[in-house]
Every structure is written in structure tokens, then in C-alpha cells.
């Protein structure tokens, strides 16, 4: 296949971004087969591409037709409503909870490291800090250990924040996928 055709197909593909991967693949395979068929039966490549129109308008023709297909029958409507009701509720809770927690833990993790560093370095230079770092029974942890202790605490918080962020990402991706499936049905 010639470069020109490859380029044409690539441009069509980039204009089909809103469709699902399978649908995109299906459409491109068909267009490619059409071009090959036309060239095989003796048509000039340029003429074939010209007849197909610009990549954007061809892609839009496919997208337009796939929108028309989405009929809103009662069953479909109920499905959509229940989807939005459910994800609306759970979304507010889960997204806010995970999001706020992840952001605050992220900030906290840096603060831990900074405070730890200040304690350790300060103590090393002989500065007295009010209050102990941590009291375990009668024994209070020496301030000089601030950096290693609070530092590892900070790393833990950082990892936790990252984990929450991933959970949130997965949740949103899951919802988006479900949404697409319903719309495509």
C-alpha cells in the first residue's frame, strides 16, 4: 500500500477518536479494503481518495451515522437514569472522599519530611524544640531522630496517597467505560 493511502487512513483514524477501539478498527479495515478493491480494479489512487472525500468529512459521516443509531427507547432511558442516579450518588462520595484524602495525604507527606528535617538538623545544631517528638511511656524519642522517623512516616503517607489516587483513577475509568457501553448499546 502506498504512503498516500497510509497517510489518509491515519488521518481518518485520528478523526474517529470519539468512537470505541473496535469500531474504529472495523471502519478503517473497511475503508482500506475499499481502496484496495478500487485500485485493484484499475482506478487511480488519487481518484479513489478524492471520491472518499477529506479524511475529516469521511470520519464525520461515520460518526454522524453512529449517533443516529442511538435510539432512546424506554429501556435504554431507564438504564441511563439508573446509571446516573447510582454513579451520581456514589460518585459524589467516592470521588470527593478519595480525592480530598489523596490530596491531603500528599501534602502531609511533604510536611512530615520537612518537619523531620528541621527537628533533626536543628537538634544537631543545638536548638531546643518545645515538646518531645514522640512519647512512648516515660521514654521520649530524641529529636535528633526526627528526620528518619518522620521521613519514613512521610514516605508511607506518600505511598498511601498514590494508592488512593490510583483507586480514584480506576473508579473513574470504570464509570467512563460503563457510560460508554450504555450509550453504545
Amino acid at each position, binding site marked *: 500500500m502506498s504512503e498516500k493511502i497510509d497517510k489518509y487512513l491515519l488521518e481518518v483514524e485520528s478523526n474517529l477518536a470519539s468512537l470505541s477501539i473496535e469500531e474504529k478498527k472495523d*471502519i478503517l479495515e473497511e475503508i482500506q479494503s475499499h481502496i484496495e478493491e478500487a485500485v485493484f480494479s484499475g482506478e487511480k489512487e488519487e481518484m479513489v481518495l478524492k*471520491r472518499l472525500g477529506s479524511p475529516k468529512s469521511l470520519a464525520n459521516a461515520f460518526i454522524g451515522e453512529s449517533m443516529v443509531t442511538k435510539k432512546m427507547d424506554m429501556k435504554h432511558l431507564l438504564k441511563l437514569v439508573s446509571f446516573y442516579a447510582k454513579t451520581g450518588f456514589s460518585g459524589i462520595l467516592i470521588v470527593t472522599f478519595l480525592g480530598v484524602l489523596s490530596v491531603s495525604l500528599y501534602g502531609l507527606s511533604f510536611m512530615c519530611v520537612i518537619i523531620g528535617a528541621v527537628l533533626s538538623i536543628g537538634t544537631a545544631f543545638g536548638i531546643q524544640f518545645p515538646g518531645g517528638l514522640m512519647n512512648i511511656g516515660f521514654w521520649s524519642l530524641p529529636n535528633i531522630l526526627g528526620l528518619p522517623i518522620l521521613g519514613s512516616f512521610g514516605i508511607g503517607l506518600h505511598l498511601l496517597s498514590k494508592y488512593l489516587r490510583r483507586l480514584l483513577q480506576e473508579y473513574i475509568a470504570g464509570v467512563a467505560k460503563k457510560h460508554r457501553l450504555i450509550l453504545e448499546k
Partner: protein
Amino acid sequence: MNIEEWKSQLKRGSLELCVLSLLKNRPYYGYELIATLETWPIVAAKENTMYPLLRRLTKEQFLESYWEEDRESSGPRRKYYRITPLGINYLVEMTTQWSYLKVAIQEIQSYEEERK
């Protein structure tokens, strides 16, 4: 409205009927459908109409598509479309409505109101 606009509306309205009518005889591939319909310029459809239409009819389960198993001769692989039983039902209904329309227009064109 100019005549080209009206023609394209007619084409849009009748293309489904034309495609299904051809497919009721045997499976066709897209390029073949386009080439065949070119015999009648009034319904000839371009690629950017035909392929999306074939996809829609397939989604609506009036058609089924399949890729041709390895072809004997050289040449590109072809994606064939064949009409389903549901598609046949749809075609029968469309054909009936079309014959009503044909009769109605004929009658209207030769209609003369009785004058007193």
C-alpha cells in the same frame, strides 16, 4: 430549494430500500454495491454515504457482515454484507410503503377536483 437538494433528499430516503433490494438476491461487498448502484444515477451513493449506512443497517440487525475467507484469486480481502430475516421483514414493509407512495403520487399528479 434547488433541484440538487431535492434529489439528494430523495436519494437519502430511498437508498436503504435500494441496498436491501439488491442484498435480498445475494451478498454484496461495499465497493460492488456502490458500483452497481451507479447504473442508476438518481440513487447512486458515494462511499461516505454507503459505508456508514451499511454499518447502521448492520447495527440494527437488518444486515450481517463477514470477511471473505481466503480468496482463490489474488486481490484484496472483501467484506460482504448479507440480509438477515429481520432485514427481509423490514424490506417487505418498505416495499409495501413504497408502492403506496408510488400510487399516491400517480393519483395526485392526475387528480382533478370535480367542479360544480
